């Protein structure tokens, strides 16, 4: 551009812009402003409700206030399961700007791999965006400090204090207590969990699962006002959490400890029950697992360790191991034979066995002439082969079913197994074959297709010893459970439940006296386990492990299972103890374990009768009133024991 001389300015200074063009510009400006006004109208007048809602969603965040889970006590109010405060790290997806960019920092700070973080996020894909996702639970103080220090860089991370389960150490009572864990996607689709949300912690097994609705309480929430960094700048209101209900179990800690000790280093199960009520006094299954590992996110190595253990630590063998009952079944056979009027008339010569239908069935010894009175203490197979043959499979099946075999007992624990009572119908249904009379013979000694669980045998034998009264086994007495939940438990845990079966007084005496002989008479199979001065009765069982033989697997697995079901006193027993020692050689071995547990019970009763203070009971109120030789029903100590929980809200992080 070259400079224009000043003179030229003068020439053109009268020139004006055409008015039409300026008017056009004015119209253009007006049009632009009208469009902008229309845009304002669209947002502020038409869309106001929508945008108000979005603005509220922006600034108000629901922070869950987790309800502490109800604690678990034994029948005398001794604490079994407690809670402890722990800090978890949550991720707020609404705050995430670029997760991939933050990933290295988060991953390093929380000691998680990016894959783990992605996997966690993926699991919660379906959850609403505003809901915080638990990224890592029970974080260390270091990790907590990391989150605090990176509030600005990582606004998406949030910590929350919550109450976490503290279970007894070393898997003590693990199978009856169960464990809690995050609800699985599968469970969320079940009607039972209709009101649960992803991320909720639920009981996964044991009492924790059955009574989850009582134990969990109701989570509260706080509405807090946050800024775009998720920083709290005020709050609106809150709903307090209702703590879960504390539960008193029927378990007696002393007996549980005795049972745990008895099973140390062994595989198998123990169940101790009060036959008057069906209250479970002890329940042990071995090998066990550490539920504390489940309460926090399970490590992969521990999970693999449990999965790969051939002895299935998660299996609650007291209610889930379906095994041949062996000679313990002879009590049920005796009951059937006597009630049918056949057994009392039988005198069977035993010469190391006998031949039926062209096959030789052996007995472990030459018992000579055997009648019902010594058949039980001898545990003479020949006698019961003969009895089985005379009764026939369907009569045996009828009596076995009447004492609760082949069906669930209805114990208030998840996934009870039902066992098998073979019959002609059963074989037809399952194998589409007819029953051969020869198959009946081995059923008479609790072998063949017959299987039962420890809880079934405990209940069946103590039911017979109680004169035919069978109770529904349970771990939580009904007075602690609201009626609706009671009903739903009855529905969800179906079983033979409470029932009375016919048993004449004479037959009752015959069987119970014979069971007493098992432990008290020198001819008894469990004489070695006798308890001086204790009316201790029972029946041994040495069950061949057929499957082990067939598979021809390692030597250990072909060793017979040792059973014993024992009780005291012999009639109307106060306690029944069933012991299953897998590959324990002889029933006699289990009898000694049961004797130890029964002895603990008896000694405790005697101490009480003498009004001695029980050392293990810390609370003065639980120095129970004199209930001489009565079973500890839990009633006398009930009022005093569980500490109040009303103040539990103090622990809720605010």
């Amino acid at each position: 551009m070259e400079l224009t001389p000043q003179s030229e300015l003068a020439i053109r200074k009268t020139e004006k812009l055409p008015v039409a063009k300026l008017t056009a510009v004015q119209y253009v400006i007006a049009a632009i402003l009208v469009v902008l006004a229309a845009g304002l109208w669209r947002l502020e007048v038409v869309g106001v409700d929508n945008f108000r809602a979005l603005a509220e969603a922006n600034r108000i965040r629901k922070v869950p206030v987790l309800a502490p889970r109800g604690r678990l006590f034994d029948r005398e109010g001794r604490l079994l399961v407690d809670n402890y405060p722990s800090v978890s790290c949550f991720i707020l997806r609404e705050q995430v700007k670029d997760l991939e960019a933050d990933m290295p920092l988060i991953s390093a700070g929380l000691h998680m791999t990016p894959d783990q973080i992605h996997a966690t996020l993926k699991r919660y894909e379906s959850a609403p965006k505003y809901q915080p996702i638990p990224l890592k639970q029970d974080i260390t103080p270091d990790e907590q400090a990391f989150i605090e220090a990176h509030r600005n860089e990582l606004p998406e991370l949030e910590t929350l204090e919550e109450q976490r389960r503290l279970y007894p150490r070393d898997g003590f009572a693990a199978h009856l207590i169960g464990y809690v864990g995050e609800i699985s996607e599968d469970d969320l689709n079940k009607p039972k969990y209709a009101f649960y949300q992803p991320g909720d912690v639920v009981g996964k097994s044991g009492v924790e699962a059955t009574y989850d609705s009582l134990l969990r309480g109701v989570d509260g929430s706080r509405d807090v006002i946050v800024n775009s960094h998720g920083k709290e700048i005020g709050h609106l209101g809150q709903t307090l959490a209702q703590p879960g209900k504390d539960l008193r179990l029927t378990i007696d800690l002393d007996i549980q400890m005795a049972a745990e000790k008895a099973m140390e280093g062994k595989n198998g199960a123990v169940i101790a029950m009060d036959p008057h009520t069906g209250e479970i006094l002890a329940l042990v299954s071995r090998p066990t697992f550490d539920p504390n590992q489940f309460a926090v996110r399970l490590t992969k190595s521990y999970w693999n360790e449990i999965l790969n253990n051939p002895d299935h630590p998660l299996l609650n063998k007291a209610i889930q191991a379906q095994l041949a009952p062996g000679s313990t079944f002879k009590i049920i056979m005796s009951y059937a034979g006597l009630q049918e009027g056949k057994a009392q008339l039988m005198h069977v010569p035993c010469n190391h066995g006998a031949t039926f239908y062209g096959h030789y069935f052996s007995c472990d010894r030459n018992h000579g002439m055997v009648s019902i009175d010594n058949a039980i203490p001898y545990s003479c197979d020949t006698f019961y082969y003969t009895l089985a043959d005379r009764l026939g499979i369907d009569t045996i099946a009828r009596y076995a079913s009447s004492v609760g075999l082949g069906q669930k007992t209805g114990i208030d624990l998840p996934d009870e197994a039902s066992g098998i009572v073979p019959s002609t119908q059963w074989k037809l249904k399952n194998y589409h074959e007819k029953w051969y009379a020869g198959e009946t013979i081995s059923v008479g000694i609790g072998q063949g297709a017959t299987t039962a669980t420890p809880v079934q045998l405990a209940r069946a034998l103590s039911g017979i010893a109680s004169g035919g009264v069978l109770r529904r086994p349970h771990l939580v007495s009904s007075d602690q459970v609201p009626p609706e939940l009671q009903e739903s438990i009855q529905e969800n845990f179906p079983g033979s439940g409470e029932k009375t079966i016919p048993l004449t007084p004479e037959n009752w005496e015959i069987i119970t006296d014979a069971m007493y002989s098992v432990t008290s008479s020198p001819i008894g199979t469990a004489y070695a386990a006798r308890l001086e001065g204790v009316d201790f009765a029972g029946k041994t069982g040495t069950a061949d492990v057929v499957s082990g033989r067939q598979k021809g697997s390692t030597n250990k697995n072909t060793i017979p299972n040792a059973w014993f079901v024992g009780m005291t006193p012999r009639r109307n027993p106060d306690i029944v103890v069933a012991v299953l020692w897998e590959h324990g050689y002889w029933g006699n071995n289990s009898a000694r374990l049961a004797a130890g547990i029964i002895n603990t019970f008896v000694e405790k009763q005697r101490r009480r009768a003498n009004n001695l203070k029980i050392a293990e009971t810390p609370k003065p109120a639980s120095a129970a009133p004199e209930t001489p030789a009565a079973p500890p029903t839990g009633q006398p100590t009930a009022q005093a024991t569980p500490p109040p929980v009303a103040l539990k809200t103090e622990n809720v992080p605010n």
Partner: protein
Amino acid sequence: MFRLSSYRDFDWVLLGFVALLSVISVLEIKSATLHTKFHGFDQKQIGFLAVGLFLMFIMSMIDYHRLLDIVPWAYGISILSLVAVKLVGQKVLGARRWINLGGGVHFQPSEWVKLVLIVAVARYFWNLGGRELSWRDIGKAFALVCVPMMLVLMQPDMGTSLTYFPVLLCGLFLGGIRLKQAAILVLVFTIVIGGAWKSGKLLKPYQKARLTAFIDPDADPKGKGYQIRQSLIAVGSGGIWGKGANKGTQTQGDFLPIPYTDFIFAAFCEEHGFVGALGVLLLYFLILMRLIQNAQTAADLPGAYIIMGIVAVIVFQIAVNMGMVLGLMPVTGIPLPLMSYGGSSILFTFLSLGIVMNIRMRRFVN
């Protein structure tokens, strides 16, 4: 030269409207920075306004013909300063836009260049003497504007570079471009821009993504759609009467991005609603109409050209900024004149107003 008759000829009405808008601006900046580390920006804005006002009066005393005389030099210096920024400029947020003059004073040449360009374009079209524009004339006009525009675009500062364009458009329109020429230009532009968009050479990918995000902000609500989405929520939740001063949840909760500069209108809409926003639109309308009136009464063509150039820039900035806030336009980072916080923007506006005042005061000269 300095034959100012009296300040009775000063446009007090225009200044009144501008002052009103400035007060609104200061109050909204105060509200938008209340709980942030930018607290106190309203005070700084008052300072900028004071300096701006002072410079406006100085400017109003300089004969705009002098400006027309020296504009070729100024234009040359402008190009040099833009090149200097490219070479020695301070890098802020990945872009070189500022020259540090020392003592905490930063200078953003691109705003200043805008003013030079307005005068330069006015002079160019005035020199053509109202004859029918040849393609050669149009080409020269393009070169005049596009050289600084490309330099600013390379900083990169797409927003400011775009504000140069209305100056050219306005000049072409008032300078007498024919309909046929305009149509051909539009056609060529569509093809060139379309091609450049596709080839990806003109704009960086982040610039492109930012430009298209407004079409569907919910597609990437955490990323590229975040700003526009929060802006829409802010405006929409204001309703008819607004949430009240200092009570906008989007503004106070820091959800709305940079609510004191580019998104100040969103903050204002949230807190003062549809009614308040219409009031601001009305103020802008009055200011623009008053400016056009001054152009109409200008003593000569270059004066009118200059004012209309200023009008073009202001209208363009209002349209693009408010369009962005309301989700009608892409996010470009263009401040709202007279409302957004920022010294450079205020200085440009008030220097422009100073020239307008000068042109107005000289309307009866000779």
